[in-house]
């Protein structure tokens, strides 16, 4: 991936056909030439040259403000259309301005007949197109409606076309005999190209969604087919009043018309066509649309134009990600079952192969199968293949079915009748609107050996699911867990609990819920643990925690952790006391929302203005916020602090809780107030598992005097190795824990790491992190660091993420800090909150709502994108013509540039990173927050030091 030194948004990208080079235009009007070089067997994008167009001294800045870029097919020249109406010519690769070749508006004016000249026909250049057959002719379209064909050698106007409407874009038919122009009133016109008539009239002019006023058609394709009937594909043009807010691309062919309706703004689109320039017809086969939140490819050859399933660039954030859970080293059997369940969900996709070819992935086959599970705001859990560089969606689980919601899923399906006009057809998976925020998933726990899955959500719901390869219809057993027990005088002011659907529910193959535990009060589930061997699930909220026996479907116990003074915990989400995290997140959302809405209001405004206007508004908003001096209160934490009962972590362990001679199952819970509860469990042996109840009694309660929230509990065996996961030993995947030596208890609070002996809890060691460096632990996880030399050697240590975004390794059992890297920017609260560690020293975090970044602390487990684009062949034109057609097509798509909205527009298949534009939005917010430009580059380079970047898209097909 390449990163500009400037912290400016990429506005346009153009390929230089067959050169392995591309030109980018940033919103500061600078041009950058990039080339794809092979370094160490891997293709890398490297910036060669950068250039800013300068006008004559004294000229207005708009004179050189680039609106359109046309790379000439000779690959020597770049034509730059500007706001002043002049077209500048620069020579590549050095960006040398060829002044004598500039097509100034005056020069064009002189060569036009009188009757055209008297109108102010010029203004800015909207379109530049090279003649498909004759490289000496280019088409120049001006915003006032004048289009001329310019002869480059003779420097004269060959033809001109004058339309009465503002011009948006122009396209040339394959043979060059026809041009199609589209206009701001939602119309498009076809013009015959001939030099006979001096002022030709349009062959045909039509407003596809008339007669009522329509929005502009911003881009159009007119593509011929062997069958004779052309494809007309255009963006926009919807009836202004009723559908003006839709983001549509319409495809018209052979009497069929579909308006593909995208849930986010369309940034650009292109059509993949016959790559051979000698071919007589375009024969389009796929439509590639870059929407603001996703990349969608539509198969134009199959009836119904179904979408093509993307092998990468899947929209992670189709509904906002609320939590994630990583499971390493999935057994093959479970893997196959999940894939099988997922494949049945993908029947609506086209069978077409992914039409974009961007080189060869050189990344070695992943050494193991890893799953990343993301929980979403709409109550779904998505299973991603996280083994390699690309996140691939394997399976999607929806928990919505279990509950009664306002919207019945069956209704929305048939909402669109047959003869609706316009013929809208929703495509893409991005859907940020959740029916009910209570459905949101907050915690996930998957047992990879048994296939049991526990999922917990915003309204205190805990579902236990089992993988079933067949579809089934059964009722989900419901249990209520009253966490307040006998506590009196509390009143929950938050949301109500979800209403479960009564009676049997139909479930598709995959994970099917069989038990629903609903916490009362229905506060967010803040911690979850599942022990598949003992068949127990533990859950905690801000009020307490409970243990449920999902084998016998019986509640074992609940424990209220509320402090009598803690009134705030009872108020629920309506609480007046906002956490810093929450308020930060909200202000981020507010900024984003205002950006989105302002963009929607002015979709076709001049690019610079929208950008500037909104960022100015942001900046003033931020300044206003900063007027109040930032103060921090210094106060010792006391027992009366609110939310002390908030259960932060739950942990099952088979250890010496009571005495040193007998070990027993135990459940550990840590709260926000620095309390650790330990319960001794009695789980009946397997043969009597259904007959005898599971018993639990409290064995210990530890109050950490520094009262910091407990974020992690871990038991180390006699060799100071963390206890294995349940069933791990049974599956021969782990050595059985050492039960001879004495066990140790590790309690990690936000401020300290402490090791205690077991069974008598006495302090052995501690590391006071916060007291020393002022950072707090946000995430902690035991990880096995394998040696890259010796196959079977590895050590277990703690991977720690702090609130400053630092990643540290703390050794076990001596608690010595080993290494420390800055990884996530400290301002990136959502990034830090989203981080998950794997069991092998890697981690993921969200760098934008749509992208996970992957890092590694392990020398052995590295996943990095390595990709080779065969440049030797691409330089040779034959290859370009047949294989990298899509590249060219994409490049061509950029030619007609359209309104640049300051968005990152890299859908190039060559890139290892596909940055969906969310990142640029976020980056802008961040840069305004920091008040400094260029800081973005800094943190990025730091991050590279930690590991290797990977977006959701990463890699090549």
């Amino acid at each position, binding site marked *: 991936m390449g990163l500009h030194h400037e912290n400016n948004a990429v506005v346009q990208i153009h390929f230089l056909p067959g050169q392995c080079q591309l030109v980018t235009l940033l919103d500061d009007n600078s041009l950058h030439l990039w080339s794809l070089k092979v370094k160490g067997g891997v293709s890398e994008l490297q910036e060669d040259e950068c250039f800013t167009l300068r006008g004559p001294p004294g000229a207005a800045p708009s004179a050189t403000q680039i609106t359109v870029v046309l790379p000439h097919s000779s690959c020597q020249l770049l034509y730059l259309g500007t706001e002043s109406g002049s077209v500048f010519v620069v020579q590549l690769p050095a960006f040398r301005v060829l002044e004598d070749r500039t097509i100034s508006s005056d020069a064009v004016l002189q060569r036009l007949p009188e009757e055209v000249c008297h109108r102010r026909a010029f203004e800015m250049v909207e379109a530049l197109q090279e003649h498909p057959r004759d490289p000496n002719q280019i088409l120049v379209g001006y915003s006032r409606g004048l289009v001329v064909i310019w002869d480059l050698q003779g420097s004269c106007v060959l033809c001109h076309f004058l339309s009465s409407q503002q011009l948006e874009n122009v396209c040339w038919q394959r043979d060059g005999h026809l041009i199609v122009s589209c206009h701001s009133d939602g119309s498009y016109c076809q013009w015959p190209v001939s030099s006979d008539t001096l002022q030709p009239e349009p062959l045909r002019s039509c407003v596809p969604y008339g007669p009522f006023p329509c929005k502009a058609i911003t881009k159009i394709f007119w593509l011929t087919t062997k069958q004779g009937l052309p494809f007309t594909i255009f963006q926009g043009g919807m009836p202004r009043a009723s559908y003006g807010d839709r983001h549509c691309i319409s495809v018209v062919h052979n009497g069929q018309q579909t308006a593909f309706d995208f849930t986010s703004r369309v940034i650009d689109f292109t059509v993949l066509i016959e790559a051979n320039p000698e071919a007589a017809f375009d024969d389009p086969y796929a439509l590639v649309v870059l929407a603001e939140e996703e990349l969608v490819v539509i198969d134009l050859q199959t009836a119904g134009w179904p979408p093509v399933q993307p092998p990468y660039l899947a929209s992670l954030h189709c509904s906002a990600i609320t939590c994630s859970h990583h499971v390493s080293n999935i057994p093959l059997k479970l893997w196959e079952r999940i894939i099988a369940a997922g494949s049945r969900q993908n029947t609506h996709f086209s069978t077409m192969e992914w039409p974009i070819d961007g080189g060869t992935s050189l990344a070695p086959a992943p050494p193991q199968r890893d799953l990343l599970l993301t929980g979403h705001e709409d109550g779904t859990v998505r299973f991603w293949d996280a083994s390699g560089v690309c996140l691939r969606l394997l399976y999607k689980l929806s928990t919505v079915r279990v509950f009664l919601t306002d919207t019945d899923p069956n209704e929305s399906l048939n909402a669109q009748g047959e003869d609706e006009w316009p013929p809208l057809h929703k495509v893409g998976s991005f859907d940020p609107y959740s029916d009910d925020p209570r459905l949101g998933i907050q915690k996930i726990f998957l047992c990879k050996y048994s296939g049991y899955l526990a999922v917990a959500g915003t309204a205190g719901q805990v579902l236990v699911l089992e993988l079933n390869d067949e579809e089934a219809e059964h009722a989900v057993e419901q249990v209520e867990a009253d966490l307040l027990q006998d506590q009196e005088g509390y009143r929950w002011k938050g949301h109500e609990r979800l209403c479960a659907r009564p009676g049997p529910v139909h479930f598709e193959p995959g994970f099917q819920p069989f038990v629903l535990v609903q916490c009362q009060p229905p506060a967010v589930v803040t911690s979850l643990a599942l022990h598949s061997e003992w068949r127990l699930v533990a859950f905690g909220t801000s009020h307490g925690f409970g243990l449920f026996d999902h084998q016998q479907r019986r509640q074992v116990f609940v424990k209220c952790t509320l402090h009598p003074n803690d009134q705030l915990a009872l108020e629920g989400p309506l609480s007046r006391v906002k956490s810093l995290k929450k308020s930060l997140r909200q202000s981020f959302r507010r900024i984003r929302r205002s950006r989105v809405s302002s963009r929607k209001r002015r979709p076709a405004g001049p690019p610079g203005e929208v950008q500037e206007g909104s960022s100015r508004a942001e900046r003033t908003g931020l300044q206003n916020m900063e007027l109040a*001096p930032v*103060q*921090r209160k210094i106060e*010792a934490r006391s027992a009366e602090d609110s939310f002390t009962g908030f259960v932060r972590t739950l942990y099952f362990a088979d250890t010496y809780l009571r005495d040193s001679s007998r070990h027993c199952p135990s459940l550990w819970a840590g709260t926000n107030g620095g309390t650790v509860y330990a319960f001794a469990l009695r789980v009946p042996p397997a043969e009597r598992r259904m007959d005898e109840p599971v018993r639990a009694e409290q*064995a*210990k309660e*530890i109050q950490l*005097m520094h009262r910091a929230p407990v974020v992690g509990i871990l038991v180390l065996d006699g060799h100071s190795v963390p206890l294995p996961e349940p069933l791990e030993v049974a599956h021969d995947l782990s050595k059985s824990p050492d039960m001879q030596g004495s066990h140790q208890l590790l309690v990690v609070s936000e*401020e300290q790491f402490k090791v205690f*002996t077991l069974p008598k809890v006495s302090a052995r060691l501690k590391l006071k992190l916060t007291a020393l460096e002022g950072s707090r632990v946000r995430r902690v996880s035991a990880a096995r660091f394998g040696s890259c030399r010796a196959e079977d050697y590895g050590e277990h240590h703690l991977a720690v993420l702090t609130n400053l975004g630092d990643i540290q390794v703390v050794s076990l059992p001596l608690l010595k800090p080993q290494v420390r890297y800055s990884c996530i920017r400290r301002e990136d609260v959502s990034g830090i909150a989203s981080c998950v560690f794997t069991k092998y020293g890697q981690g993921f975090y969200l760098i934008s709502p749509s992208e996970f970044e992957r890092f590694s602390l392990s020398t052995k487990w590295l996943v990095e994108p390595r990709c080779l684009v065969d440049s030797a062949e691409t330089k040779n034109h034959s290859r370009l013509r047949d294989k990298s057609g899509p590249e060219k097509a994409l490049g061509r798509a950029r030619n007609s540039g359209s309104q640049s909205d300051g968005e990152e527009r890299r859908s190039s298949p060559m890139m290892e990173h596909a940055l969906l534009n969310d990142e640029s939005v976020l980056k802008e917010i961040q840069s305004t927050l920091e008040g400094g430009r260029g800081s973005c580059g800094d943190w990025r380079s730091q991050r590279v030091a930690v590991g290797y970047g990977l977006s959701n898209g990463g890699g090549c097909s």
Partner: protein
Amino acid sequence: MNRSHRHGAGSGCLGTMEVKSKFGAEFRRFSLERSKPGKFEEFYGLLQHVHKIPNVDVLVGYADIHGDLLPINNDDNYHKAVSTANPLLRIFIQKKEEADYSAFGTDTLIKKKNVLTNVLRPDNHRKKPHIVISMPQDFRPVSSIIDVDILPETHRRVRLYKYGTEKPLGFYIRDGSSVRVTPHGLEKVPGIFISRLVPGGLAQSTGLLAVNDEVLEVNGIEVSGKSLDQVTDMMIANSRNLIITVRPANQRNNVIRNSRTSGSSGQSTDNSLPGYPQQIEPSFEPEDEDSDEDDIVIEDNGVPQQIPKAVRNTESLESLTQIELSFESGQNGFIPSSEVSLAPLASGTNTEFETHAPDQKLLEEDGTIITL
């Protein structure tokens, strides 16, 4: 183990030091190797051995160069005693149960006769009552200015001791910038400042911190380069025993304080303690062992109890270690420049300076060193 038991005199050779130990009416003489005095525990065992009182809990004291009876109860003051003994180390042993704590303190030995007469004839009191300095275990650590001797005079190190008080710490900090002299001239650097004191809070009531004081260190760790949130977290994490080094906004105030300290330097006989934790390295673990760290464990819903430390080897000197623990930082049992205990002490000793002019000179020298 270097117990060179050479009873009796004859310790003329270099490197050894004569020790004269008195328990009750009995004297014992032996010698120690000055360079390798060993540990206090060993010394304590040795004393019990030579006096043949193996199972008696005793208090050990010594006469320092000024003739003051000072306690020996840890390695630090033991080493101090050995290093300052010239030529003879005079040891006084009292049984714990009948120990006269008031004996410790200034001029106790030189005025021993007087003390004795006081004891014998209680009616013969002077007008000013003798200041009773209690044993270390009776001390309650209080908020104080510390490390005056090792800090530049523009800085002030304040220990806010929260333990045992119900008062909130009660102050706020903010971002700001201060001007520093650097090799490139004056430069504005970001800093952390105290922005507000809560009325009735500990910070305000001690009077040691003021609004606009620049915070330089928190428990020995420099705050430069750290964010406001980081510093906040550090302070809260250390809130049980918070040591803040500030550059007071009002530097004039600082000077006044210093002169006052030097004037009352009667207690500062040990101001050059070698073993005093400098608070600069983050490794002030012994400091940590105070009560703030004792988490509570409740077994089987039983009675809460403090979590014991696991690693220490079980020793017989429990009582002594007890003292050591409750003792803060292993000084001679006194908290330097502790304002509460300092003021009456100063007034109490004032009268005696005149009679012991040589001592006073010596102390004044110390005092000027402090103020410099």
